[in-house]
């Protein structure tokens, strides 16, 4: 399941939805929630703007889900990404994988967030105390 939205999401509610829609097949749900940090590259971040490429974004996320499902035995996957203006401590991204066993769920979740960071067309622009700047692609995890 994929959602790209300006509204906030509730990670707890998403996990509960995964649990309640699971008919006993999955024994593990692993999730990752990404938040806006108040500090980046040594500078205080006041606000962040998330730009994306509508249409291609959804295709890229669907491809990531599909690739994870081909590689591991998953019963469900979720990718939610916010766009638009965000503030420090806001939710940005939620990724979850459900599987019969935990190792598959852990690996699939990590694969989906790592791949999203290098392949899904989102761009972050930070507002600092003295201006704005586009975030450079991370080399660290």
């Amino acid at each position: 399941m994929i959602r790209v939205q300006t509204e906030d999401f509730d990670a707890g509610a998403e996990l509960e939805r995964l649990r309640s829609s699971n008919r006993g097949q999955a024994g593990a749900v692993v999730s990752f929630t990404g938040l806006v940090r108040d500090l980046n590259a040594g500078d205080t971040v006041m606000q962040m703007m998330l730009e994306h490429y509508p249409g291609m974004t959804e295709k890229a996320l669907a491809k990531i889900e599909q690739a994870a499902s081909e590689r591991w035995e998953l019963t469900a996957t979720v990718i939610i990404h916010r766009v638009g203006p965000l503030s420090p401590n806001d939710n940005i991204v939620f990724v979850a994988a459900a599987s019969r066993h935990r190792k598959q769920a852990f690996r699939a979740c990590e694969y989906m967030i790592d791949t999203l960071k290098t392949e899904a067309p989102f761009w972050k622009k930070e507002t600092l105390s003295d201006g704005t700047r586009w975030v450079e692609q991370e080399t660290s995890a």
Partner: protein
Amino acid sequence: MLQLRYFASLRESLGIGDEQVELPDGVRDLAGLTRWLQDRDETWASALADSRLHVAINQEIVKADATIRDGDEVAWFPPVTGG
């Protein structure tokens, strides 16, 4: 007609997010289309010379030798920074 799109810092450098152009005479691949855009002026020449830029045709990432066909949607953008 081609639908051209530019995102993030590139959109700001160029001062435009999207436009429609007729497929230029003699342009057959992405490298040719990029050169045609770079001929507009110095701003376009330098902004599109950035080797880190990615390009998608019809919303799929492609390489410089990708073929351009009438009706294509072509997008240039910097490395992605979501997540």
